[in-house]
């Protein structure tokens, strides 16, 4: 039993669950997973190939239209198409392929070990920081760097320093240049500078890998395609910049909605010592939030709108999350747990509200977060009460 289960205060969302309940939740989730694994087949393969096909045709078409971006209608259509293509490439395709969701197809062209994405961060580094660290230590304060990306304070348990006063601004800048933010994050740039590790051979190798990737990416969008556009060069350059900006803002918003909205729990380092499979599942359930919306919206988020299902089963094909969501939600209900979800505007606003609120120390505003703070040693898990 971890400290997480020992806690009996009102704000512990799992105080009513016995260790047996938690292991039973684990078994039920394992069964949901096994069902999908047994059923996945030709139609799933056809789905991802279709998405890739549409994405490539849309990108080719948009870039072809942008060759004439001197004409405003061409600029608008090309930029819109390229933005959508880049969003699809990053989310429904890149993120999910690199998670290994399609490895079972044994197609070397759609495989986590061979995929490279249209993003500043090299696939290899992203897979390490995202798949291995974030998905393992989800929402564990001090372990999961996704909690504020090392530049923000998004949980009461993170210590406040004056730097965070400006975090709404940091967050906005990070949103605009999100792909570079991810690249710096995957390099653990801040930590490595602080610990003076920028001269080590490992860091140098990773840095040069990232810079090489950024150079190729920038050459493509800001040199080659503009030059190919001839007289439309500057317009194409602007179009590509806007497409990258649009993609960055979109992915940043979607990802903020995954773990930052009010109602999502965070966990202490100690609480995951000796964690069982069932406890790991429960942490993923309480540490993630979904977004409601149309089918097109789900695809555009790479089905990260089913963040809860994704965190429970990171390597199941994304097209299956929608199908299992009702079963997962019913499980939450049966065990008296809160399935956090909301529309995109609501969740984005909620996440931004938290970023703004926590830019100040906990007790700075009249809003009371923890009416009866526990002695520090007993505080194993904190729910951000909305």
């Amino acid at each position, binding site marked *: 039993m971890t400290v997480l289960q020992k806690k009996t205060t009102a704000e512990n969302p799992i105080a009513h669950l016995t260790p047996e309940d938690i292991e039973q939740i684990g078994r039920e989730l394992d069964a949901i997973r096994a069902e999908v694994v047994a059923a*996945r*087949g*030709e*139609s*799933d*393969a*056809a789905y991802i190939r279709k998405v890739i*096909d549409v994405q*490539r*045709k849309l990108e*080719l078409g948009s870039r072809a239209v942008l060759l004439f971006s001197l004409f405003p209608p061409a600029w608008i259509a090309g930029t819109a198409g390229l933005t959508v293509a880049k969003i699809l490439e990053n989310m429904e395709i890149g993120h999910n392929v690199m998670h*290994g969701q399609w*490895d*079972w*197809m*044994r*197609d*070397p*062209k*759609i*495989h986590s*070990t*061979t*995929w*490279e*994405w*249209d993003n500043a961060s090299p696939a290899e580094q992203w897979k390490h920081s995202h798949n291995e660290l974030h998905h393992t230590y989800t929402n564990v304060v001090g372990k999961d760097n996704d909690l504020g990306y090392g530049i923000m304070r998004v949980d009461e348990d993170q210590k406040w320093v004056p730097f965070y006063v400006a975090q709404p601004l940091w967050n906005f800048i990070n949103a605009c240049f999100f792909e570079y933010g991810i690249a710096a994050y995957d390099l653990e740039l801040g930590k490595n500078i602080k610990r003076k590790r920028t001269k080590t051979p490992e860091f140098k190798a990773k840095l040069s890998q990232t810079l090489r*990737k950024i150079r*190729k*990416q920038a*050459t*493509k969008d800001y*040199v*080659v*395609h503009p030059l*190919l556009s001839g007289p439309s060069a500057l317009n194409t350059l602007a179009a590509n910049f806007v497409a990258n900006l649009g993609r960055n803002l979109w992915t940043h918003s979607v990802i903020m909605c995954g773990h930052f909205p009010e109602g999502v729990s965070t966990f202490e380092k100690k609480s995951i010592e000796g964690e069982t499979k069932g406890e790991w599942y429960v942490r993923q359930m309480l540490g993630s939030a979904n977004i409601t919306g149309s089918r097109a919206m789900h695809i555009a988020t790479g089905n990260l709108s089913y963040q809860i299902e994704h965190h429970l089963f990171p390597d199941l094909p994304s097209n299956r999350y929608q199908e299992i969501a009702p079963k997962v939600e019913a499980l939450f209900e049966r065990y008296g747990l809160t399935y956090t979800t909301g529309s995109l505007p609501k969740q984005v606003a909620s996440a931004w509200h938290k970023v703004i609120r926590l830019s100040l120390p906990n007790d700075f505003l009249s809003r009371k977060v923890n009416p009866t703070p526990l002695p520090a040693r007993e505080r194993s898990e904190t729910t951000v009460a909305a």
Partner: protein
Amino acid sequence: MATTTAFVRLTSPGTPRWMTSLKDGARKVAELAATPLVPSDYLDIIDPLRRGADLRGRIESIHAETADAATIVIRPGADWAGHVPGQYVRIGIDVDGVRQWRAYSLTHGPRADGRISVTVKAVPEGKVSNHLVHDARVGTLVHLEQAAGEFVLPPEGGKFLFVTAGSGITPVIGMLRNLFPVTDSGAVALPRSAAYDITVVHVAPTEPDSIFLANLRELDRAGLITLVARYDDTHGVLDVADLVDLVPDLDARVTLACGPAGLLDALGAHHAERGLELLTEQFRVATLVTGEGGTVSFDKSGIALEATGDRPILDQAEDAGVLMPSGCRMGVCFGCVLPLREGVVRDLRSGDITTAVEGDGVNIQTCISAAAGPCRIDH
């Protein structure tokens, strides 16, 4: 995904230098414009069978041969380099969404229309063979490798005996069709085939199960080959000692045999005793010895798994999510070979042990090798 396939055909020796550098320049620009993909990823959308593409083919027709066997005619990509009858081709096809590779004998000589064909017999539990015979659809794109295999007839002719069992007939049919094409007006004796004197002893469990039987009989009727068909249910299981009665001039012939391990082993002993030449192709894995297994780790993917000693490393690595090269899965085609950097493996057919010490790179066939201790594989 970075593949290394060039998308432009390299220029021929007679091309002027300026054109070569123009093409090189165009290729570089296309690569810069396509990153992080490669130009061929986009060109594949338009024409997956073009020159310079990864070798693929499209299924053009599927003909039933018997209730459980079918001939699949495939239009190969532009880079198909041709084949010699008797060779096999490795085909990758998606079954239930999963890419599966198998090796099949090419059942014909080079065709005027440039197509290739394989004849597949659906075997019980055979994922790919059942799919190809019963469910495959015309128009499906398949993945190919160039033809390979040394089970071919010498070009100068001679006296031969083919001993085939079940689907072991397929490479032999390829050779026979090349020697004696069957047209609407019957089998044709070509001048180039006059130097071949061929007897075929074909074994099958029952008569209707014998694929290509009609074909063999037609050649026999035309006097082009001598056919000895043996069915287990009427004649009893073939005893290799009876061969000398079935084929009176056995000692004057070179034997080519294709079938299950049991038959090939018996033939091997029989021919060795008589001092006869034998060329074989084995199509089945007979598991003889199993051992204790061990941890198998893959250098490049970083994956490590606890492998048991009774199943091939290939199967267990695939189950663990490693993207493995594979082919016939019977120890024939060498499509699954990977360097063993360190460790011990056991050949599941013979029980033979292969050992690699640090610094080595012993090539092992992962489809017939099981871990016999900890193994480190370069993949």
